[in-house]
């Protein structure tokens, strides 16, 4: 199971590296953007991932700043939950994956959603 998901992830990363979601028609599109014309918090994250895989952090930041910042956070979560980080660093978990951090995260997502459409 874990191996299958791992292979799938590597395949997906390869596709995101090899092909630019900006120009290739087949990457999934945001249903929210198609319907409303407004960007959702995730819009641009595929382009940002493509830029990141090509080590172009500046462009990635313009395409979706939230996702660029979220990626190290996601890795921290995977380390804490699945690679034994919880036991070694219980304080890290309390700070970054506690109750309040979850609430702050939701506020950040909604704030980013509103601001990116206003600015």
């Amino acid at each position, binding site marked *: 199971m874990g191996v299958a998901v791992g292979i799938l992830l590597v395949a997906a990363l390869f596709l995101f590296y090899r092909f630019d979601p900006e120009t290739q028609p087949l990457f*999934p*599109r945001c249903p929210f953007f198609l319907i409303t014309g407004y960007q959702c918090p*995730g819009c641009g994250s595929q382009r940002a991932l493509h830029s990141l895989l090509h080590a172009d952090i500046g462009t990635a930041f313009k395409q979706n700043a939230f*996702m660029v910042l979220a990626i190290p956070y*996601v890795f921290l979560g995977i380390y804490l939950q699945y690679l034994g980080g919880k036991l070694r660093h219980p304080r890290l978990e309390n700070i970054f994956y*506690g109750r309040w951090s979850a609430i702050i*995260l939701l506020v950040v997502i909604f704030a980013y959603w509103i601001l990116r459409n206003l600015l």
Partner: protein
Amino acid sequence: MNRYFYIDAEGKQKGTFSPQELQQERLKRDTLVWTQGMEQWKRADEVEELQFLFSVSSTAYQTASENPVNPYPQPPYAGDNYRPMPRTWLVESILVTILPFLLCGNLLSLLGIIGIVYAAQVESFYNRGDFAASAESSRSAGKWTKIAMWIAIGWLLLTVVAVILFFVFVGSLAGLEELITT
């Protein structure tokens, strides 16, 4: 049906499991278990509902626990009325909220947010001493998180397959052109 926690060989708390699920967990007679309504942790073979685990079929484990080093170890946490906190699912529910954005699955993120809300309740209820509500929130958080996770994995699979098929298709068209021109 009661749901049980137990303390494994490394002293880590695991749970919750129904008595049926505990059959898979290789409990020994002296494994400490706890469920709602119990004053403190008990040996598994002292809990009536779990007696069946140690009937004829599981003789293999009986020899191992004939001479337990310390048949009544203290629970690894202090206090007689200790109740273990159910799994919160916070990390997982946060991950399934963020990650679907990467594949335009923002509807999935809504499921993840439901998971986060329940996951955050687990600790609040637990701190207030409402253990039943805490366990209930933990179960709901786990349910929504798992639903979101499986749909996300399916969606990732679909995307990868679709993109690969598309390029195979384009490749075959190029071959077609060659057929016509020659």
